[in-house]
């Protein structure tokens, strides 16, 4: 056989055709919205129940309630104790997972297709009639209080918590799902019961079912298990989403001291955009160029050029309300101030002085679009993606439109959205690290006074 031509890389052919999963929408008699997706291949089925009401639904003083209520879902139902529920899940070989987001909570259960009916019924029982017993509540709350203690040891968690508070000084988005020690102590079982009654109702929920079965069979699984779910009308409205504001807090530079830390955990950013922004596609491309992928300006600068870190990335935390743009990294302590300065310089550069090059545009767009079909391999990937469509009220044609929309973005648009949605002068830079070793160089950054936050 002729040898390989090693004088150039092989050409990449045209993108292969892919048929995105077809989504069929149904509404059960009780108002529950159901979306089914046929996913042939491995005999597995995934259920995602998305309930509107995430950590953003926590009232002031009750931070952590939504998450606690979600946690109580697998703590017993009917005659089953918490242990029995866990045993029942294990006997189905099921993977069960709860994710409390800003705007909604997702309960995911994956099981073998042949256990589809049992899985659906178990999930329904757990969600619609959890026992909510005093003993279980006390145990779960205590575990969460103890978990909070443990999080104090974890630099990324400490940074996340302090950063959210700086970003949203007066909005329920400004806390971690787990809440705070003070708020958790004040939450009672009655609060959980009322929260469950008001939030876990068919009108507020969407069930996504994806699996190696037909739409009719998937719908039947949903209907058999959830048709009997009743629950009143909406008892209370969720908190309004925050509008974009000049960040209410005045701190632009803050540190959570961690004596002797080997590295500084960094968060840099500000409130920026809502998921429903018409600029979503240009923002994705802009982010990929700036720090959303390995070959991006900030990662190449901080990791490959300066060797300050194992990695750095940027992103948008998409929410229904205004969510943050953020940079996150963990750098060698001695590099702390310089890493912040470099990051801000990269942001400024992309806003105008160093606009995206044609090469960067093509790399960002290709990496976002060409591999897109690989996100549809498993029932879990598919069901979770469709649940995202439901959460943000996106059309069923979203997946087909994604690639053309991203490919249509121009370099000028990237400059425009960088200019509109990023602003180093409003950015908050937060350090979790050794104060003595860093404060002098931090002060020299010109970002104003260094706010020293309480240790975790």
């Amino acid at each position, binding site marked *: *056989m002729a040898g*390989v031509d*090693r004088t150039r*890389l*092989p050409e*990449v*052919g*045209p*993108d*292969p*055709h*892919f048929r995105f999963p077809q989504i069929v929408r149904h509404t059960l008699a009780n108002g529950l919205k159901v979306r089914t997706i046929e996913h*042939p*291949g*491995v*005999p597995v089925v995934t259920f995602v129940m998305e309930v509107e009401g995430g950590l953003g639904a926590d009232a002031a003083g009750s931070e952590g309630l939504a998450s606690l209520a979600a946690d109580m879902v697998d703590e017993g139902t009917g005659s089953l104790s*918490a*242990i029995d*529920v*866990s*045993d029942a899940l*294990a*006997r*189905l*070989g*099921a993977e069960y997972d709860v994710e409390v987001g800003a705007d909604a909570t997702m309960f995911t259960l994956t*099981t*073998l297709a*042949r256990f589809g009916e049992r899985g659906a019924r178990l999930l329904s029982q757990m969600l619609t009639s959890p026992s909510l017993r005093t003993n279980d509540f006390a*145990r779960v709350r205590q*575990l969460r209080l*103890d*978990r909070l*203690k*443990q999080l104090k*040891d974890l*630099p990324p968690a400490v940074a996340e918590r302090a950063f959210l508070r700086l970003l949203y000084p007066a909005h329920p988005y400004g806390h971690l799902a787990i809440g705070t020690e003070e708020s958790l102590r004040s939450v009672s079982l009655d609060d959980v019961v009322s929260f469950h009654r008001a939030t876990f109702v068919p009108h507020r929920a969407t069930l996504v079912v994806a699996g190696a079965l037909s739409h009719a069979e998937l719908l039947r699984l949903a209907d058999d298990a959830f048709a009997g779910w009743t629950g009143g009308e909406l008892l209370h409205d969720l908190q309004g989403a925050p509008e974009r504001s000049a960040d209410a807090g005045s701190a632009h530079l803050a540190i959570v001291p961690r004596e*002797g830390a*080997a*590295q500084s955990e960094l968060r840099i950013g500000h409130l920026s955009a809502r998921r429903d922004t018409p600029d979503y596609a240009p923002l994705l491309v802009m982010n990929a160029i700036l720090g959303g*992928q*390995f*070959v991006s300006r900030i990662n190449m600068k901080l*990791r*490959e050029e300066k*060797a300050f*870190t*194992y990695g750095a990335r940027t992103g948008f935390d998409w929410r229904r309300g205004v969510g943050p743009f953020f940079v996150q990294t963990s750098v*060698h302590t001695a590099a702390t101030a310089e890493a912040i300065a470099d990051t801000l310089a990269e942001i400024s550069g992309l806003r105008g002085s160093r606009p995206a090059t044609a090469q960067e545009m*093509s*790399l960002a767009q*290709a*990496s976002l679009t*060409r*591999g897109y*079909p*690989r996100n549809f*391999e*498993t*029932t879990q990937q598919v069901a979770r993606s469709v649940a995202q469509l439901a959460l943000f009220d996106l059309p069923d044609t979203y997946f087909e439109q994604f690639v053309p929309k991203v490919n249509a973005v121009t370099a000028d648009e990237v400059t425009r959205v960088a200019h509109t949605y990023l602003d180093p002068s409003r950015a908050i830079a937060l350090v979790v690290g050794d104060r003595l070793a860093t404060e002098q160089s931090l002060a020299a950054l010109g970002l104003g006074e260094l706010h020293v936050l309480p240790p975790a």
Partner: protein
Amino acid sequence: MPTVIELPHVKRTLPNGLDVLVHEDRRVPIVAVNLWYHVGSKNERTGRTGFAHLFEHLMFEGSEHYNGGYFTPLQQAGALLNGSTNTDRTNYWEVVPTSALELALWMESDRMGYLLPALTRERFETQRDVVLNERRQNYENRPYGMALMALSAALYPPQHPYHWLTIGAADDIRAMEFEDVRAFFRTYYHPANASLALAGDIGTEQAFELAEKYFGDIAPGTKPQPVEAEASLPREIRLVLEDSVELPRLYIAWHSPAMFADGDAEADLLADLLANGKTSRLYRTLVYEKRMALDVSAYQHSREISSFFLLAATAAPGHSLTDIAALIDEGVQGLVDEGPTAHEMERGVAQAEAHFMYRLQTVGGFGGKSDQLNAYNVFRGDPDFFGSDLERYRRATPQSVRNAARRYLPFDRRVVLSIVPRGKEPLALAGSERVVVS
């Protein structure tokens, strides 16, 4: 009738010794390229630890015919890519749209055949610093992050290749010599020490043709000698390590059967029924009923030369590691005396069957089908082992699990490590010796 769960494939070996494994899955227009080199930190020696992993970083920096970072052209083609190193092997993978398969094969083969001309001292030094940052981030700056280091050092004697972790000692990393790269590459990075799996939307014959085209002309090397080493514990070793943590944690580690050896699957089942999930025996006692621990977990760390079985539990505020250790011992003794119940065995096997099915869902990446084929091929010499692997769990009996508990979890030959908040050494188990790791 048990469900049939299979991973069909074809294996051929190129004349230069490269094993090629092909699995067709035409559902999504992607192909997984997965390449294993049978080298890991077990091939290092004292004073030179961390080298295999550092070398993995260098594989992304360019090769003779593409002298630049590997991420750019592959990302440009829509690929997802990564690599990893453990004690026993190093893997590299791309998941590419079918249109970019040849690109991925070109690049993987170029760095297998022609890496060294592109390597510069500067690239070496940058990646050495990146790795030191990785070590700080994932070990030094992470609560309980030094536990495995302390445990490995106690479980295995200094000359044993599992004595150190893959990340290596910080001093060793700093002292690495650029010149060592060359010898390491020649010894371990060649077709006879590698295994290539292609899985996804591609015909079997076409896959073999492409593998031959890109890898066929790479010079064969000499298969390295297998690493052999023995380790045993003469007694129970108790250690204490102070860390920046709020709550003390207890680790108990035992030597256990090597990957796929008799008793390995039983050890896996033991881990689940002892400490994974709310139904497990120790969770039930320690976390659910007595509320003495925040969490408890167990894991059979299956490895090529020998494995270790690890139990860990974090004390709830106000509770002592001593009390927790006593309850753990009681739980283990219960299994030694009576073995698991039929109900527990059924549950364990049901979980194993489901997990084998879930493992068939993705073609690439860590743990995808291509990665599994390589694991079976490299560690068993038999990529067809998927079905037999599941059979090991189906064949386990209450008696065989009980035997494994009796044989592999003795109280008088294990390492017990207490990690305690700084300045709180008395919170450790009595008689613990202070250990130093860095």
